[in-house]
């Protein structure tokens, strides 16, 4: 049964990569990357069960964390053109005036 899930996840990952390549706007691509990360988490977990080594779930958990933080960081970068102190800069400038 895990073979079914592996094949389904593989097909889904290829389709989402197609959207990542063809996406007309930036947000289509960010959405595709995020969805691809979720697919990867599930894929790593299912591969672990398929090969009889469920310890892969640690890697899957780490991948889920990195995927979420990465998506938020990419969105914040494209919104404010800065990752760190996006809200701080204008107020500093105002105070300087």
């Amino acid at each position: 049964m895990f073979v079914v899930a592996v094949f389904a996840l593989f097909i889904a990952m290829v389709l989402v990569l197609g959207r990542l390549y063809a996406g007309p706007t930036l947000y289509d691509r960010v959405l595709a990357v995020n969805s691809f990360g979720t697919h990867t988490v599930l894929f790593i977990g299912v591969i672990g069960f398929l090969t009889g080594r469920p310890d892969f779930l640690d890697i899957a958990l780490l991948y889920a964390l990195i995927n979420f933080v990465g998506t938020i960081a990419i969105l914040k970068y494209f919104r404010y053109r800065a990752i760190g102190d996006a809200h701080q800069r204008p107020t500093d400038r105002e105070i300087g005036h």
Partner: protein
Amino acid sequence: MSALETVINLLSWFFIVSGSVFVVIGAVGTLRFPDFWSRLHAASITDSAGMILLVIGMCLQAGLTLVTVKLLIIGVFLFITGPTSTHAVANAALVTGLRPPEGEGLTGAEPEPLEADGDDNA
């Protein structure tokens, strides 16, 4: 005892196969839907339905071990962060001027001006 294992196996089959179906449906929708907002809707199917069903199926296969605890941690984390990042993508697209098409007769065949708007800011 063996009957119980058979029932658990059947339930696990059901959950994993239906989760796989939902994952493929979400990916096909992500690739084929005509406009960004409907693609968003299709992609969040994978995040919610497919992920939950696959994790439940794997939990049933693992039994009462540490693996189930890890799976539940992954499931709860993805359950919280999947909709959060979908909302973040939608909010960022809305703030930068991408609008869902409105009005009569919109089949999504020609979303060109909206996507050109989004490309301006991208």
